[in-house]
């Protein structure tokens, strides 16, 4: 049955409708549904291998779900692919950091800015005045973003040479450069110390306010998520076992069960 969006009620920014994902014998996602409202910071938590990154991959178009679909402002996004979804307004970072390593910090951000800004080919080839002004605007925009993420001093460094924390922030800068409405952050605090995590939390809040963004975030550090997020969903074995405000999720018996029963390191590394 297909609900048509009600004309009076606001359409959610993103709806995930009963998305399933099967890899061979493994059911990585089992009919997961979510709705993101505009402007909220939404957290996704759960043990390793619960399917969080797979859900990110589905939302950002890198993985085609075996069942269900996503809707962007009420319109199905099926078949758009990663670049199509990015142009729609979804940007992401990667758990394992996927920067353009041989490019400089500045160029990484410029790549992100480029998709929105097409310059006339002939002018671009000749490097005429209009093109130079166009380039100047992009460069200024890039430096603005780098300044916001405290990377301006490193602009001419090769991305592959950056230390870990700077790479994480560069990935966020690159994602922001594509002017998203929804930002997906996959474990942005991984490998950070408590002070850095606190900085990151403030940064995410600042970004949300500055760009009027909606943020969907995966993070293992539960206390950080409790303070940062407006709402949380908990995944376990591919299923959404809880959804609500941090206070509601904290007291949910199924969440406590999943964390106490299943967070053991024996489950190993995974998505």
């Amino acid at each position: 049955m297909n609900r048509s969006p009600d004309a009076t009620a606001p359409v959610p920014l993103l709806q995930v409708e009963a998305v399933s994902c099967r890899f061979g014998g493994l059911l990585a996602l089992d009919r997961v549904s979510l709705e993101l409202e505009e402007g909220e910071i939404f957290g996704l938590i759960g043990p390793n291998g619960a399917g969080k990154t797979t859900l990110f991959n589905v939302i950002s178009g890198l993985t085609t779900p075996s069942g269900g679909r996503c809707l962007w402002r009420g319109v199905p996004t099926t078949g758009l692919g990663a670049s199509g979804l990015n142009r729609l307004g979804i940007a992401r970072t990667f758990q394992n950091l996927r920067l353009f390593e041989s490019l400089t910090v500045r160029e990484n951000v410029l790549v992100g800015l480029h998709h929105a800004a097409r310059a006339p080919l002939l002018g671009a080839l000749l490097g005429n005045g209009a093109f130079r002004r166009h380039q100047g605007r992009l460069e200024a925009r890039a430096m603005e973003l780098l300044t916001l993420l405290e990377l301006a001093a490193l602009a001419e460094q090769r991305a592959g040479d950056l230390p870990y924390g700077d790479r994480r922030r560069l990935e966020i800068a690159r994602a922001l450069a594509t002017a998203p409405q929804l930002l997906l952050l996959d474990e942005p605090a991984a490998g950070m110390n408590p002070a850095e995590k606190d900085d990151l939390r403030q940064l995410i809040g600042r970004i949300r306010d500055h760009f009027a963004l909606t943020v969907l975030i995966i993070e293992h550090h539960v206390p950080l998520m409790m303070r940062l997020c407006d709402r949380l969903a908990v995944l376990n074995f591919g299923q959404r076992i809880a959804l609500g405000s941090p206070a509601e999720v904290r007291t949910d018996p199924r969440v406590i069960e999943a964390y106490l029963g299943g967070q053991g390191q024996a489950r190993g590394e995974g998505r």
Partner: protein
Amino acid sequence: MDAALLEQMLLGALLALSVYLPLGCGQLSLATPGFYAVGGYVAALLSTGVAAFVGSGATSPLWALLAEMVLGGMLAGLIALAIGGPVLRLRGIYLAIATIALVEILRVLNLNLPFTGGAMGIFGIPQPFAHAEGYVLFTLALLALACWLCQRLEALRLGRAMAAIRDDELAAASVGIDTPRTKLIAFVASAVLAGVTGALAAHFLNSWNARAGSFDASITTLAFVVFGGSRFWLGPVIGGLALTALPELLRPVGDLRLILFGAVILLGPLFFPQGLVTAERLRALGALLGRGRHRSRQAPQAP
């Protein structure tokens, strides 16, 4: 150095740039010699068969050469456009082998089609230039144009998108780059350049046959780029010039010459895994010359 060898070196550099373009966005295409052969056949057929292009006696007008280059480049580009969509979905070694297969299919067609002259090919192709020096000047201009375009590409949206795909195709898609389209543009540009070069080479060589586009040539042109370096356009140009000249320069050693050529191809990548032209060496060169290409590339829009 004699002009004929110089001309061959310049043609080698153009072909190396043709291999470099797809490699610049991470696509290992070995199709260049196939498109080169196609361009050459276009020129050979037009200039020996179509009255307007034939000219008088053994010479042909310059405009005919230009028209043939445009048409040869266009036909090569159209073939690339037609097959690029599905072929470029393949990755790494699969793409390489598919493009080798394309070269072989084109070679078999060139050998067997009723109008391509069979194994003998087409000969008596008229000359737009009386001397090899004319070809050298003309080809030098073409090479300069190709280099200038490659240099400009680095500052452009398209060039950055290519570099991004080379570094990480998935991440490139996730920042909104239309990766299939970008790869297709690079592939078609590579084919056009090879086709144009083929049209020119057919006149220079005076005859054209299916051996112009062979597997050997696929690997030799790839060697140009690997040898020179695949990060900056200067690398393939130097690789193309040097490796084309090498067998000729080795002529004094007689029978051993191709063995030494093989040894150079074998040892080159072992000693220069990044190729001769690398970012570091360019920067060093830039520092040496005061204002280097690399630095001017980094300063936004130096006029």
